[in-house]
């Protein structure tokens, strides 16, 4: 068959026309939900769990909802372009799932007042921008308890991503609870300055292990530190953001699991019903946004029981992970006996508690 240029072009024009009508018709009855991810959906951690939330939305609403996502979007101007494109493509609701998307989200939201935005782990809101996060520090309290018991060298390594309040809260919470069960415990903190860079995370883990750490906590998203710990032998780790169960029962002895699905479904429902308003959600273990992955048999039974008891107390609200007496690193008083930290201080936390060595990079 001989194809002329003209025939091809007519065909293309027709296809375009068809596509345009098709999307135009669909836009009326389908709610379009966009997701912007900082890592690849296969990272096995943070982004992986957000994508599970997205899949849950698709499953829950079926044909009512169409979801789109863009993965591995760098924080900064690139993310602004991606969000703008999503909004132009007719998204009704956009979830931006990393701290560094905060200002881009606010900027794009100002340009598209009819599109609803949901920014994870940030603190800036607008009429059409909600923020949501999970109280990961509650999970860190449980991890710290287990880590304090499990370490024999009394050195716990911590791989930080960026020195932002969320990460600092995690370090403080883990340290407070490790110290509670093991007064000799010492934290070594390495900042990776990335959320996701397996080579760097692996190197950081190896260095911490070489410097005597036998428990590694990570606030980065890949499973590379788990692999490094496994290669080293007697080192324990915790799954971060996702269960990372492929490294159980050792080195991974428990994990913090983010469970975004209920929130994503509720917010999508709100958009469909037209009841969406700008909110500030910060849920912990109680409402189920933070889960504690199975504590494996590598952990002695009494430690496991203690950790689970702490988890229950955190879930019921009987105990707050930041309960006084607590001092700041410089020795000044922070919380008096029995006093608990307010959300404002926690949201902007930029100091270590007493006992942690080193400075927070500025």
């Amino acid at each position, binding site marked *: 068959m001989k194809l002329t240029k003209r025939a091809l072009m007519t065909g293309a024009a027709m296809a375009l026309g068809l596509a345009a009508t098709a999307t135009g018709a669909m836009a009326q009855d389908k709610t379009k939900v966009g997701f912007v991810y900082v890592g690849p959906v296969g990272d096995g951690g943070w982004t992986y769990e957000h994508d599970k939330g997205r899949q849950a939305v698709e499953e829950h609403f079926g044909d009512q909802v169409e979801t789109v996502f863009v993965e591995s979007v760098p924080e900064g101007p690139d993310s602004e372009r991606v969000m703008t494109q999503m909004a132009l493509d007719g998204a009704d609701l956009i979830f931006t799932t990393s701290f560094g998307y905060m200002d881009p989200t606010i900027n794009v939201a100002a340009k598209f007042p009819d599109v609803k935005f949901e920014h994870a782990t940030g603190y800036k809101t607008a009429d059409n921008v909600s923020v949501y996060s999970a109280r990961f520090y509650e999970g860190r309290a449980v991890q710290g308890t287990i880590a304090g018991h499990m370490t024999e060298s009394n050195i716990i390594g911590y791989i930080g991503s960026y020195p932002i309040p969320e990460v600092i809260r995690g370090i403080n919470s883990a340290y407070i609870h490790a110290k509670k069960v093991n007064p000799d415990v010492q934290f070594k903190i390495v900042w990776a300055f990335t959320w996701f860079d397996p080579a760097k995370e692996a190197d950081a883990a190896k260095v911490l292990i070489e*410097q005597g750490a036998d428990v590694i906590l990570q606030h980065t998203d890949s*499973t590379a530190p788990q692999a490094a710990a496994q290669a080293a032998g007697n080192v324990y780790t915790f799954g971060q953001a996702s269960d990372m169960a492929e490294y159980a029962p050792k080195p991974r002895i428990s994990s913090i699991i983010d469970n975004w699905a209920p929130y994503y479904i509720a917010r999508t429902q709100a958009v469909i019903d037209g009841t969406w308003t700008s909110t500030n959600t910060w849920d912990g273990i109680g409402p189920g946004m933070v889960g504690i992955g199975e504590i494996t048999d590598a952990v002695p039974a009494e430690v496991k029981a203690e950790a689970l008891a702490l988890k229950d107390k955190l879930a019921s609200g009987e105990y707050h992970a930041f309960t006084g007496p607590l001092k700041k690193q410089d020795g000044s008083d922070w919380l008096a006996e029995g006093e608990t930290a307010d959300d404002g201080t926690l949201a902007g936390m930029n100091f270590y508690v007493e006992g942690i060595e080193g400075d927070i990079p500025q």
Partner: protein
Amino acid sequence: MDLSAINPVLLIASLMVAATAVMIAAIGELIVERAGVLNLGVEGMMITGAICGFAVAVQTGSPTAGFVAATIGGAALSLLFAFLTQFALANQVASGLALTLFGLGLSSLLGQGYQGIKPPATPRLDIPVLTDLPVVGRILFGHDLMVYVGLALVAAVWAFLKYSRAGLILRAVGENHDAAHALGYKVVRIRIMAIAFGGACAGLGGAYISLIRVPQWTEGMTAGIGWIALALVVFASWKPWRVLLGAYLFGGVTVLQLNLQAAGIAIPVEYLSMSPYIITIVVLVIMSADKSRAPASLGRIFHATS
């Protein structure tokens, strides 16, 4: 601050591991440049090797098969460069840059579905007695096999260039391709072989990152190592043993900056993170006094009729 937390033995041992990938890639590029070809596509060939090796190792369960596949993958990609520069007579700099961009794209395409998977473990060399020796044992006898392969490669390349007739011909081609042609040597054929060797080495270096150093696959995981390898060749003024020295220096700074951080040294992390690159630049500047060492025909296009 607690410097005593840094164990020098472990530091040297991990420095050797950190240096291996860049060393293998650089020794391959050294041969390419000694043959008078400038291939800037090292980064692209490394990452292609990384994913080829990773995918095959996962599928077959054998790290050895993975490393073989990585050399084939790297060499195959380099043959594209060879075709462009030796037959189509394209500009070497532009072709090399294109090769890097192409390799990065190709690798993320091939890597779809391999994210978050664990590769089969490569065993560490464990010679009874020898590995248990204090200090020396851990440094000399406690590594995975690839560390030794890298060292052997450097020694082999050195011997090849210095003592073998083939090495002499390779150098002749790199120094003056017209003269070599007049003597009856097949300039294009020799250069293609050199390019393929360079590609194979780059692929092997890439697979070392994805199979042993991390071990995991992620897009863009070589993160600029290929460019460091290129810089190392100049740093080494095209001499094999200096490649080894440069690679260990680079690996040392990389590992040391993390060690200093963990030991709580109050140097801003940003300076430590960029220190390996700064040192590379400084050394390059110092070494540039030694300009005359570059192969005379480096980067020049050869055609038999001209």
